[in-house]
């Protein structure tokens, strides 16, 4: 039972099989994640169709500039993550560590900006369940619904970011130990898939929550 010692786990024939297995597992998990967020997107769609006017009104309370900046930050982090994966394939240990650190900084930056936005909503009494206030008062119900969905979706996304940062920390420690080589870099590759997936979710959250009604 010395599984953790060698790269090849006992129940696999060879490394390509092990690699293909891990990759397929990750992608199937991504399909699960699509459906997980899909439920939220559906809830959003149905309610927006029910209250288009109030949802537009409520979305005006978001800070579009911060949202746009955050989108750019996340795209940058995807770029650095992609480079980290590239460096792990090429066996560039030091560059790998640097790109991982950059990705983490950008990820933290995203969360920081997000936290600032949330704080602002809190000060403006826009957090459902915590003394929610909205004018016109007649629209408070659906507006609260909009913000519930906003917090549920961005919160779920942020949770994924935090998990991603945990994974990146693990990768960083392992990369300091020079564990990743051109022969064995599946963990980096798979973490990259996860990180990019979180990016993709935001690519949809950003227009849906911030943008589509700002012209109104």
């Amino acid at each position, binding site marked *: 039972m010395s599984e953790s010692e060698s790269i090849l786990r006992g129940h696999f024939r060879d490394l390509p099989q092990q690699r293909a297995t891990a990759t397929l597992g990750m992608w199937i998990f991504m399909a699960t994640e699509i459906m997980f967020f899909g439920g939220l997107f559906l809830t959003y769609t149905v309610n927006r169709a*029910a*209250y288009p*006017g*109030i949802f537009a009104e409520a979305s005006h309370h978001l800070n579009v500039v911060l949202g746009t900046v955050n989108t750019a930050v996340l795209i940058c982090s995807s770029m650095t993550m992609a480079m980290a994966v590239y460096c792990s394939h090429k066996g560039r240990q030091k560059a790998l560590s640097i790109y991982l650190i950059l990705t983490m900084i950008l990820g933290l930056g995203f969360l920081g900006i997000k936290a600032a936005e949330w704080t602002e909503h809190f000060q403006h009494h826009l957090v459902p369940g915590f003394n929610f206030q909205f004018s*016109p*008062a*007649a*629209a*408070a*119900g*659906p507006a609260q619904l909009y913000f519930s969905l906003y917090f549920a979706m961005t919160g779920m996304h942020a949770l994924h970011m935090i998990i991603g940062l945990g994974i990146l920390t693990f990768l960083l420690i392992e990369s300091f130990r020079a564990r990743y080589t051109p022969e064995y870099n599946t963990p980096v590759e798979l973490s990259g898939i996860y990180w990019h997936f979180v990016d993709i979710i935001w690519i949809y959250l950003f227009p849906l929550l911030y943008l589509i009604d700002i012209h109104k």
Partner: protein
Amino acid sequence: MQPGLQLFPDSASTFASSVDWLFAYLMAVSIFFGLLICLGLIYIAFRYHRRAPDEVGADVHSSTLLEVGWMVVPFLLCLVMFFWGAEIYIAERQPPSQAMEVYVVGKQWMWKLQHTEGRKEINELHVPVNRPVKLVMASEDVIHDFYVPAFRLKEDVVPGRYTTLWFQATKTGQYHLFCSQYCGTNHALMGGWVYVMEPAAYEAWLGGESANGPVSLAAGGEQLFNSLACHTCHQPDNKGRGPSLMGVYGSTVKLEGGQTVLADNQYIRESILQPSAKIVEGYQPLMPTFQGLVTEDQLLQLMAYVKSLGAPATGPSVPATAAKAKPAAK
């Protein structure tokens, strides 16, 4: 109800017999295939029982023709079920325009019913025989379901919207009324009886217990309209801060932003509870919400009143339902 073992429910509406015929068809198909398979299994059990310990089966293991056959034949039989069932379902969703309306409110754990003439009842519904009746139903709390087995009809009563159910009773008598959507502790007690009466008896019943007769629903709504001060803004001559409600019911309303909406029950309801959701063109979103300030009963009264403004000459229900049959702006 007859004592002892009853195995088939009463049939007391126009739908009951059509549903029973459909049931007969479904039973025929089911019994045929059920017997085919069970008798087939029994036949095989005797015919192909293993006779020697080293015996193996014959090497027959595929036939595309057979496969296609037993895909196509059941499917065709199913298509008949689909169209037949859909035909009945669509008929059940299309109340005739001359149907008399009864307003139903479900709440944990009772049914409150109001007739347009004003008579109210609880857990009981009196209707005349051989006359189409349309129920407009709302819930004050959770989802309920208005179910009359003898009519073969049910429909959920969903909070936040109106659902409808219509029937034409064919036999006088007393029939079970159940709540068939689980609604909490006393779900099983939320039921009563539907009394199907001769028209004359029904008219007499409508006159009610009080000597001068009950106040009609629309009149009750008008009182409410004034006491809630709706009339200060919604003036009949369009000079108030809100749009006039004359002739609104059943019409197509233009909204801010260019969209239109059909002024049906659901729209009236939303305009009272979520006034800022849809703003009529040319008006400001000034109206406060009445969410929590009016009960479902009162909402139905207000609706009856608005409806009565729709076509004062011909009586409440006719033009409204006619307009509703048309598809709304999507």
